[in-house]
């Protein structure tokens, strides 16, 4: 486990509430993530953890409360929101690579269209990133020709190409075959060690122990616990967390 980072807040959620109709899916969420911090969000399905993750780049809107990134309040819509999103990398459970574009074009699209980089510059950087996540040999294929693990690593490279301030991972390994989970986790651990600020929704307890500075446990739309991994896994304070851990760790 790495040292606790700078203490300078990067992402701040205060008093965030969200409803899906009558369903109160996020209830009074207060959460601050420091620059360089790796926060793992765990909890049973339906606990609101994915929704929480998606509110941070406003793929989900919120009912009340405030979210700021690097001191800037999330804009409601339009170009301002697009610009803010370009600073927040997102990795999805189902990869969501652009199906009609090659792997290389997937990674260069954002830098060319949003950052206005030249094609040559964007491709050079994209090849470096693909090399770093270990899929440079697949650069000219389309996503459907890749394995799930390879696709997810391309998705990470696509997000990194925007030089994001923070990376959101929404259950990045949940759609993968078991033998492909590690290749994705290795890339994520590498990122964490380099000091990337990361918010990771996952069921991978091994990753949480290895790379997280903090574990946030959610249930029923609330944050029930927020602790360092060692404390959380060995001595959780809430009964709900004890119950959850006993179910997932005893196999």
């Amino acid at each position: 486990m790495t040292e606790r980072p700078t203490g300078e807040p990067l992402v701040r959620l205060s008093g965030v509430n969200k409803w899906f109709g009558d369903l109160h899916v996020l209830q009074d969420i207060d959460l601050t993530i420091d620059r360089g911090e790796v926060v793992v969000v765990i909890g049973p399905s339906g606990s609101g953890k994915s929704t929480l993750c998606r509110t941070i780049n406003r793929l989900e809107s919120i009912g009340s409360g405030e979210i700021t990134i690097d001191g800037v309040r999330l804009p409601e819509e339009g170009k301002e929101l697009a610009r803010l999103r370009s600073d927040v990398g997102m990795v999805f459970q189902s990869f969501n690579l652009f199906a009609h574009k090659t792997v290389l074009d997937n990674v260069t699209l954002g830098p060319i269209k949003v950052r206005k980089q030249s094609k040559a510059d964007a491709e050079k950087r994209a090849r470096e990133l693909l090399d770093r996540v270990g899929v440079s040999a697949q650069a000219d294929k389309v996503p459907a020709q890749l394995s799930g693990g390879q696709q997810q690593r391309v998705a990470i490279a696509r997000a990194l190409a925007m030089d994001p301030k923070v990376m959101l991972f929404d259950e990045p390994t949940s759609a993968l075959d078991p033998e492909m989970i590690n290749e994705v986790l290795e890339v994520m651990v590498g990122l964490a060690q380099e000091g990337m600020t990361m918010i990771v929704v996952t069921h991978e307890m091994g990753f949480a122990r290895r790379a997280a500075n903090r574990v946030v446990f959610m249930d029923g739309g609330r944050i029930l616990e927020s602790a360092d991994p060692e404390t959380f896994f060995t001595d959780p304070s809430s009964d709900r967390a004890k119950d959850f851990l006993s179910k997932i760790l005893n196999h």
Partner: protein
Amino acid sequence: MQFFIDNFPLLRDAFLTTLSMSLLAGLLALVLGTVLAAFRVSPITPLRGLSTFYVETFRNTPLTVVFFFIIFGLPQIDFAVGFFTGSVLAVGLYTAAFVCEAVRSGINAVNPGQAEASRAIGLTFGQSLREVVLPQAFRTVVPPLGNVWIAMVKNTSIAAGFAVSELTASLQRLSNANAGELLLVLLAVVIGYMLITLTSAYGISRMERRVAILR
């Protein structure tokens, strides 16, 4: 055979008129229909309303009435267009409504994750539509757009009633002059339409195979 040779210039001109009407109206319908489809899925409410209004108006009005409106109605508000231009406009504007609905169904068939991922890297709504959603939508709408196109080619025949010398008008003219050879006249006109529609059908099925994507 002598009948075809004698009337070749007239049939050729009529064929070329139907073909150019189809191409011009088709282009208009494709461009306008795609813009309307983009409006229809846009986050801006007035644009969605405008597009819905357009589609429901043209889709639910008989094409002949649209012809009447453009060719005889527009001059009433000092906006006169010729018979040929008016016919192209009528067919193009009418067909745009159907193109819009076909393209919209294609947009809805694209996995929402594709649009989410493009928004997540900071593309604006317009960029996401152009770069990610529409290119994938068009692949699924090639067959329905093919249907719309073929129906549209045949719909240009209404222009015969509005003084445009296209294939159906030549049918009327030639059958008056060659009452004894009515079947030959019909054959000639049907061949004219089929030259366009069958070639299109072949082109469409080739395009369908070429743009088929791996998912």
